[in-house]
């Protein structure tokens, strides 16, 4: 195995800044829990940095691929830990939880969002609220809203595009 080049503190900090939020987002998607996502991020960052220092990353230029593989392995582990955490929470209560994890670095203007939501068509607003309230997929939202799954997807795409435009988020793609 070819040794990775030495990595200095500044490069490590840059890698952490770049990947920590993205790994956390990956965790939110796969674990649907801010605390578990935070656990995932911390574990993956440790593995990434230790592996780079030890020269265990075969292709440092493809670090994203390495991080993804690590995420997938750690997710399985975190899910097992999460199940134990949930057991403890049910037994000992929410007092054991650390302070609420502040997840989103992209704070949205609430009043502007409310105004933008009010401008959506009624069907669009219902699909958006139903989708996001419990992060439900199209099939489940369709069952809740008496719409077809395909319709839910189309309505959801359109509504989110409109919200981004209304919120001034800009877009590509």
């Amino acid at each position, binding site marked *: 195995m070819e040794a990775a080049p030495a990595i200095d503190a500044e490069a490590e900090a840059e890698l952490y800044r*770049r*990947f920590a*939020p*993205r*790994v956390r*987002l*990956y965790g*939110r*998607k*796969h674990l*649907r829990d801010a605390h578990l996502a935070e656990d995932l991020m911390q574990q993956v960052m440790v593995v990434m940095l230790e592996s780079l220092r030890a020269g265990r990353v075969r292709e440092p230029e493809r670090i*994203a*691929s390495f*991080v*993804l593989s690590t*995420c*997938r392995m750690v997710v399985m582990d975190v899910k097992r830990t999460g199940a134990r955490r949930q057991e403890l929470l049910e037994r000992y209560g929410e007092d054991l939880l650390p302070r609420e994890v502040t*997840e*989103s*670095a*992209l*704070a*949205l203007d*609430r009043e502007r*969002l*409310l105004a933008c*939501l*009010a401008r959506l*068509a*009624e*069907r669009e*607003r*219902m699909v*958006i*609220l*139903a*989708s*996001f*309230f*419990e*992060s*439900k*997929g*199209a099939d489940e939202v369709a*069952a*809740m*809203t*008496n*719409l077809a799954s395909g319709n839910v*997807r189309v309505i*959801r*795409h359109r509504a*989110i*595009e409109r*919200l*981004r435009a209304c919120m001034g*988020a800009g*877009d*590509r*793609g």
Partner: protein
Amino acid sequence: MTGTSPVEHIPLATLVDYWFDGLGESPHEEHLLACGDCSERLAWIAGLGEEIRDIVKRGEAMMVLTGGLLKRLAAAGLRVREYRLGPGASVNCTIAPADDLVVAHLEAPLAGVDRLDVVSSVGPVLHRLHDIPFDPSSGEVLLAPRTRDLRALGHATEVARLIAVGADGEKVIGEYTFNHSPFRE
């Protein structure tokens, strides 16, 4: 490096589907870890979700609901105050400090209705919701006003009309009167 070289970015619609549908692996995930632009757009979607969950829990948005959605909200622990009215009926209503949502069940003959609007008035102020979602087989329309509006309402009478809109014009299929007063212990 802020993102990929001239690789095409993931379309927004694909990001939306990725976020909501399925917990399995996706072919986009390596790109999402590598690309600042795409991960930022996904983070925006995630942030939107957090805001909307909070908006729903606090009743900060006017909502037209279905029975299925109302059941999910109640199952999630929201405290829902409900009023049921038939056409022509009136009800004395309020909102308690502990209520998260107030839902009006407006019963109406919905069979054969293609499109439904709701016109509500409080005094001289009229507000119209166009083409609301509804289940014709349920025989009712579920409306959840913004709780902050209800809390600020004081003593007021609101009249809501369901209007069936079709090729041959508009027809009022139900009128409902809400006599609102502040909550008293």
